[in-house]
């Protein structure tokens, strides 16, 4: 299988979906001639032309709203928010509109839009180019939120999102773009939205996380193996709605659970994961449900030592995993 980077998997998925279905199109700021500020849409403009790869005015509510309108009409828009931090002006369109169109019309209308946005820190992007924004949207029935960690999942989930009959917020970890590489099959495939994935089987402790932190946990698990600590790692992949069965199964398996997010701790989606566990398998637990997250400060600062203090990294993860194992 060919090996490619996380961002290449995105570009390829877009390319193939646009070839497969001419209702699929891309819109956003600088997605055309420039191929996106991260180059996620590179080559699409040249291949599919400016009617299917639209450079929009600088207006996120319109990017979402026009996308939503086109989706109601029957197109398959893939809207790009240049940075997830800049999705905020589009919240009304996403929460009040996209998420509620099917429900409010009693299934008469629907809104199959995919909204892509690069999120996450560790790129010296400071407060407004580093945020995790999923929790703003992770309480909106009608919406799905996908946050893949590997190129394989990226490609399969992006295709599934584009083909999905409902709105999907597809969040890409921007630090993973070029850092994370992996095997991706040549043939067409999708990965089901709503299903978590065991990224490592283990028996001593359970780590539940998503995005870049999956890789931190996998690295830490390698190290801890030498110490005789065998970690079970569940990658949520879809953070809304959560895969309850998979969470309960993973938590029950070892009885010791560590939840990790790069987001600020309080109100992050791992609170919900914790609640699911203690509602459903409390008596299987041998230790308090531990959480590792960013601190409760607005977002990570720019200065490198300050950013480092904020960001989750393999060392912090390893430390937390060892502590839990030793509980």
């Amino acid at each position, binding site marked *: 299988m060919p090996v490619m980077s996380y961002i290449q998997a995105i570009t390829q998925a877009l390319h193939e979906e646009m070839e497969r279905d001419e209702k699929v199109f891309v819109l956003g700021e600088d997605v055309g001639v420039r191929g996106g500020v991260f180059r996620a849409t590179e080559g699409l403009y040249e291949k599919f032309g400016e009617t299917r790869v639209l450079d929009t005015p600088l207006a996120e*509510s319109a990017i979402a709203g026009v996308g939503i309108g086109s989706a109601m009409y029957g197109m398959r828009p893939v809207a790009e928010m240049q940075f997830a931090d800049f999705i905020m002006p589009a919240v009304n369109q996403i929460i009040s509109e996209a998420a509620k169109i099917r429900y409010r019309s009693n299934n008469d209308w629907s809104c199959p839009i995919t909204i892509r946005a690069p999120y996450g820190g560790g790129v010296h992007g400071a407060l407004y180019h580093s945020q995790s924004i999923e929790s703003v949207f992770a309480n909106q029935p009608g919406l799905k939120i996908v946050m893949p960690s590997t190129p394989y999942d990226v490609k399969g989930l992006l295709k599934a999102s584009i083909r999905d009959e409902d709105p999907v917020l597809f969040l890409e970890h921007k630090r993973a773009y070029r850092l994370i590489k992996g095997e991706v099959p040549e043939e067409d495939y999708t990965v089901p939205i709503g299903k978590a994935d065991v990224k490592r089987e283990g028996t001593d402790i359970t780590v539940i996380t998503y995005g870049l932190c999956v890789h931190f946990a996998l690295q830490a698990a390698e190290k801890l193996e030498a110490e005789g600590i065998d970690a079970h790692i569940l990658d949520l992949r879809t953070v809304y709605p959560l895969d309850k069965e998979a969470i309960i199964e993973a938590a029950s398996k070892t009885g010791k659970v560590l939840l990790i997010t790069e987001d600020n701790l309080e109100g992050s989606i791992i609170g919900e994961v914790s609640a699911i566990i203690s509602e459903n398998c409390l008596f299987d637990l041998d230790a308090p449900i531990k959480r590792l997250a960013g601190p409760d400060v607005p977002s990570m600062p720019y200065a490198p030592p300050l950013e480092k203090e904020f960001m989750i990294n393999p060392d912090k993860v390893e430390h937390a995993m060892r502590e839990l194992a030793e509980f």
Partner: protein
Amino acid sequence: MVKVDKLNKVAEQRHGRLGLTDEQVLDMYRTMLLARRIDERMWLLNRAGKIPFVVSCQGQEAGQVGASFALDRQKDFALPYYRDVGVVLAFGMTAKDLMMQAYAKADDPNSGGRQMPGHFGQKKNRIVTGSSPVTTQVPHAVGIALGAKMEKKDFVSFVTFGEGSSNQGDFHEGANFAAVHKLPVIFMVENNQYAISVPLSKQVACEKISDRAIGYGMPGITVDGNDPLAVYEAVKDARKRGNNGEGPTLIEVISYRLTPHSSDDDDRSYRGREEVEEAKQKDGIYSFADYLRKLNILTEEIETKMEKEIKKIIDDATDDAENAAYADPKSIYKHVYAE
């Protein structure tokens, strides 16, 4: 006789010149009247405690119907706002549909009783589902027009909203997007002078809402909302431009909100009765009836019959809705996602 004939000719030139037959203008009038009578009935039902909420079209029917008749109602998409009873009737929604909505019954085609009255949507008639937060439909209309452009279809999308709502960011962003991409959208502001209690002078400082068009590079026009033919003409022109690839148009239609904002509002605290009475004198339904009467298109006989028919339609619709079932409470778990 000669005199009447002459008058007839002079007057006829107005709708005839616009390419409208006598039958069509009578149909326009009937639709306006139906909208008004339904609305009036809603208030009665509300005051009788039968339905919890009404939000009115009264005073805006002429503009709504004039505009709708200028569209291709077999092709074009309508994105109405909550006052657009005239628009949705013209696009094929029935009195019964509206009563089902007012009573929030399962057979409400808009939402099956999930949404409040005035939240229209009916796919088979290309009436696009709407919500409560104002102006969100503006970018949707642009997106639908983008669909027309991408698929090389010759429909336009027609979106309405209040003048107060034209101060929302979504108006600006949507209008600009449509203009840059030259999309076939007709933006129609129904300027009824109030946003709930806030008079026009506290909403905007521009002379006309249509003055905003130049800032997007599109034509902007202001027309008398009590004159359905003037609105018809403006929308007809805009539709032509849209179809020709010349992009969007902003049309401001001046009217007056004859009722309180909704059945939950009491407008006496913020506007004088004289002002309301004065506006009632200019009611487009009456002046259009006058026009048709002068042309002998609307005879006493036709009028009586029309009122009777409309009453019957509304009575039946009310009975049907009153006797219809609510949706099953367990149905609330349905249609969150595709099933």
